[in-house]
């Protein structure tokens, strides 16, 4: 298994956000985490990216307790795309190079253009991010995460802040990237139809606990 959560839990100020979460993800698998608002979906993704610390249990990444891997290295391997793009001031190229720059590296122009083509933003490298639409900004955010060459991609409601046209464009883009790269993905969404289109397996979260885990069609139609 590429990633395995064992008895994972998080409690903040005596409030239980997640409790006894157990699941595993195989390489190349696309999993949707579905649940109502406040069920702990985003909290779970934050734990997987180690932006928050589990208060119980842990996550095994490539068979190793993820707390043994330096956080920065782990976060590059388990990349995350958030609901809002949160682009940094500057150009598209500067944003995409943000991750590699942290390791003292920089994408070659050719690699940068190839990545931009993959997210349908060819020729956008020198454009200032303030001039991008919501959909374009989210594409840059996806490309920026991919520039770190993650082994797992965490997607936290990546289309929920977009209008309908941009939403379907970004969704199609994510599907093609997952397919082309055989990327392991964990998608958080409240949109069951989107989950059906993108994932093979689903976890249903309710009040911080997994109540269902299985093939997406079986889980959603049960």
């Amino acid at each position: 298994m590429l990633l395995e959560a064992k008895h994972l839990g998080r409690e903040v100020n005596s409030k239980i956000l997640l409790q006894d979460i157990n699941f595993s993800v195989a390489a190349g698998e696309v999993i949707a985490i579905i649940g109502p608002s406040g069920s702990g979906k985003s909290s779970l993704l934050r734990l997987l990216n180690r932006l928050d610390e589990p208060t119980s249990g842990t996550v095994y990444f490539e068979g190793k307790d993820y707390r043994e891997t330096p956080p920065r290295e782990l976060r590059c391997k388990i990349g995350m795309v958030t609901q809002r793009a949160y682009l940094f001031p500057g150009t598209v190229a500067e944003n995409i190079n943000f991750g590699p720059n942290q390791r003292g590296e920089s994408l070659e122009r050719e690699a940068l253009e190839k990545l931009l083509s993959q997210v349908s933003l060819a020729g956008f490298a020198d454009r200032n991010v303030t001039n991008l639409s919501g959909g374009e900004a989210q594409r840059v955010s996806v490309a920026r995460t991919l520039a770190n060459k993650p082994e797992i991609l965490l997607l936290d409601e990546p289309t929920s802040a977009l209008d309908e046209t941009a939403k379907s464009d970004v969704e199609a883009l994510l599907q093609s990237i997952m397919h082309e790269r055989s990327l392991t993905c964990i998608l958080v969404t409240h949109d069951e139809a989107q989950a059906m289109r993108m994932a093979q397996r689903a976890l249903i979260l309710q009040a911080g606990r997994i109540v269902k885990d299985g093939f997406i069609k079986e889980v959603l139609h049960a």
Partner: protein
Amino acid sequence: MLKHWFVTQLQLGFAQATFTALTALLIVWLAKWRGIHLFGEAAIAMSRGIVQIVAVGSILVLLLHGPAWTGAIVLVAMMVAAGQISARRAKGMPGAFAVSTWAIACGSGSVIALMTWIGVIDTAITSLVPVGSMIIANAMNTNGMALNRFRSEVLAHVGEIETALALGAQPQQSVAPYVQSSFEASLIPALDSMRSLGIVWIPGLMAGMMLSGARPLYASIYQFVVLAMIFTASGLTSLVSTILIRARIFTPAQQLALQPGR
């Protein structure tokens, strides 16, 4: 008018203090109409202020007759008190008191020590304590502003900071723009004081020096010297406090600990 009613200097002083405090409280009371509730804090601050300055004034009278090293003790005590006061502007930030005290001690302490050694500040307690206290007080204000601004910036940019962390950034890199803006903002008053010196305001020290017989030109130059020392101490304090505090808002696992509502 007050001079006609109060005969002794002490009576006059207390009458002047009461009148000015009442006018200040009137403004705070007027602000309440606009939904700004500062009455409690302003009343306590003013009460503390008058009690403290009278107490310190009395102690200074005693110290003036003591050995020179007692001045250093007074200044160290002032730095600790300044650390405690300005740490309140950093609500929710871990270790704010330690950070503030170290920053103020580094910023103002090093400037006072250097300037005393060089001979810019006279070693006599009558010079060392008043000039030193001005430097410490301004370092305290700068530190409070830097921490307060940094806290606001971090809380307003949690998404950007965590995005940077998620992309593999070092914690200090993820908050670098907010360290910079907090540092810049905290130095605005010190810069404005320097810029407006002699045009918008004639500081009390210069007026006092002239009243006590110093040549006006030397009093003017020395006032610039004091402001330059204040600026140096404030800049160093702000630099140290923003560097120290940025490390404390992250956990050992490089997670942002300062979060809204936590």
